[in-house]
């Protein structure tokens, strides 16, 4: 049976004209107005930050599905192995296990020595209750606003503006929170601004991101400032969001541009959000 909207009737011959009607411009305009409203509310009131975390929770099954083909491919060779081959690989694994146990014995000795030093260090500046683990789920392909999505535990007490750390230093800060997911604004994001202090010259400033794969910039630096190339940059703790003394990057270029009243100081972030699977969330006190 033919649907009513699949044809028009000619005024001249009363014959059916088979044509698909074009989309109504009013619908397009209405949709664009909805989008404009969403964009403006996001720009001025950051409305999306309240729902993004929960939306990521909804998309979590999609994230789990993403790993299915990889796991299947990884387990495929095992399906074609004979029992004797599996037995052989089990024996090899047992041997490896024995080796690891021996190595562990040596490591225990070393770790006991380290423990003393660690406890001294940790008591000085860290409270381990403030840390929780996070696992990378995905990262957006947006070059200028790369957003990292991490899985957090259901009982995690992470909050907005908590800091994401990796062994190499600062990764970013938490901007949206769901039940199981959190969205992180990484250092490379053009919206990101981090109060810093330099290692040698002890000068304060703000590092602004410039997008994935690009060096950040220290903003509004007077031309008389004496930065050094290769100088390391750490968080200064000003504004109270980022804790003091976390590694941010290294100064890679200092330019005195004739048409600018400020120095152009570039900081390369050594931490790429892509190269890490696990992170620590630091709950700032």
């Amino acid at each position, binding site marked *: 049976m033919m649907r009513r909207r699949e044809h028009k009737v000619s005024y001249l011959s009363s014959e059916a004209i088979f044509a698909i009607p074009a989309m109504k411009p009013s619908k397009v305009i209405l949709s664009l107005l*909805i989008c404009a409203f969403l964009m403006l509310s996001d720009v001025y009131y950051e409305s999306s930050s309240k729902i993004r975390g929960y939306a990521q929770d909804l998309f979590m099954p999609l994230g789990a599905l993403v790993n299915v083909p990889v796991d299947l491919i990884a387990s495929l060779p095992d399906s074609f192995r004979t029992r004797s081959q599996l037995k052989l690989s089990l024996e090899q694994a047992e041997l490896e296990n024995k080796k690891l146990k021996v190595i562990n014995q040596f490591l225990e000795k070393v770790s006991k020595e380290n423990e003393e030093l660690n406890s001294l260090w940790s008591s000085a500046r860290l409270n381990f209750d403030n840390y929780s683990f996070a696992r990378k789920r*995905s990262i*957006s*392909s947006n070059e*200028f606003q790369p957003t990292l999505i991490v899985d957090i535990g259901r009982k995690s007490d992470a909050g907005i503006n908590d800091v994401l750390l990796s062994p190499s230093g600062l990764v970013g800060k938490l901007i949206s929170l769901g039940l199981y997911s959190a969205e992180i604004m990484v250092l490379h994001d053009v919206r990101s601004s981090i109060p810093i202090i330099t290692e040698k010259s002890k000068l304060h400033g703000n590092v602004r991101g410039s997008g994935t*794969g690009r060096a950040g910039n220290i903003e509004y630096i007077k031309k008389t400032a004496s930065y050094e190339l290769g100088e390391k940059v750490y968080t200064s703790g000003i504004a109270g969001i980022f804790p003091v003394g976390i590694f941010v990057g290294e100064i890679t270029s200092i330019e005195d541009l004739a048409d600018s009243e400020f120095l152009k100081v570039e900081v390369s972030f050594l931490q790429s959000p892509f190269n890490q699977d696990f992170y620590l969330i630091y709950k700032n006190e």
Partner: protein
Amino acid sequence: MSRELKNQLLILLTLFIALYIDSYLFSSDFQILKPTFVLLTLIYWNMALPDRIGIMAALAFGIFVDLIEGSLLGLHGALFVLITYVCQRFFYQFRVSPLWQQSFILFFLFALYKQVFALDFANANQDITNLSDISFLFSSFLFALFSALIWPPLYLILRYYRRRWVKS
């Protein structure tokens, strides 16, 4: 289940599969260049069955992509709606062209599409003029090229799917 509803669900299924591919985490270099499969799939359905896919689907999937990508809420939505409208307006001309011509048109469309993401809507960083950024232009070019290259195989797969499953 009515045939109409079944067709709608089958079309939505392809869009969800595309969303699934889009949310896949590729290596860092490819992550920026990977084509937006949802948009390519949306373009296909707009071209093949324009009366079966509406503006609401474009808007909804645009907002889904915004939420997954962490971009400004409504930005992908607006782009998807505009591209859907253009595709529906010109689908008669577009679908009779050979595949290489379609890819060529999509190359320019995707190159333009990528430029929108260089705009600093939130006025976050006044010092950056992204459109004059050579590396961004280069990555936009590669993104558009990948999208154009992926179009013929995707077109053939979706055409097979449509002929096999989506009955009119």
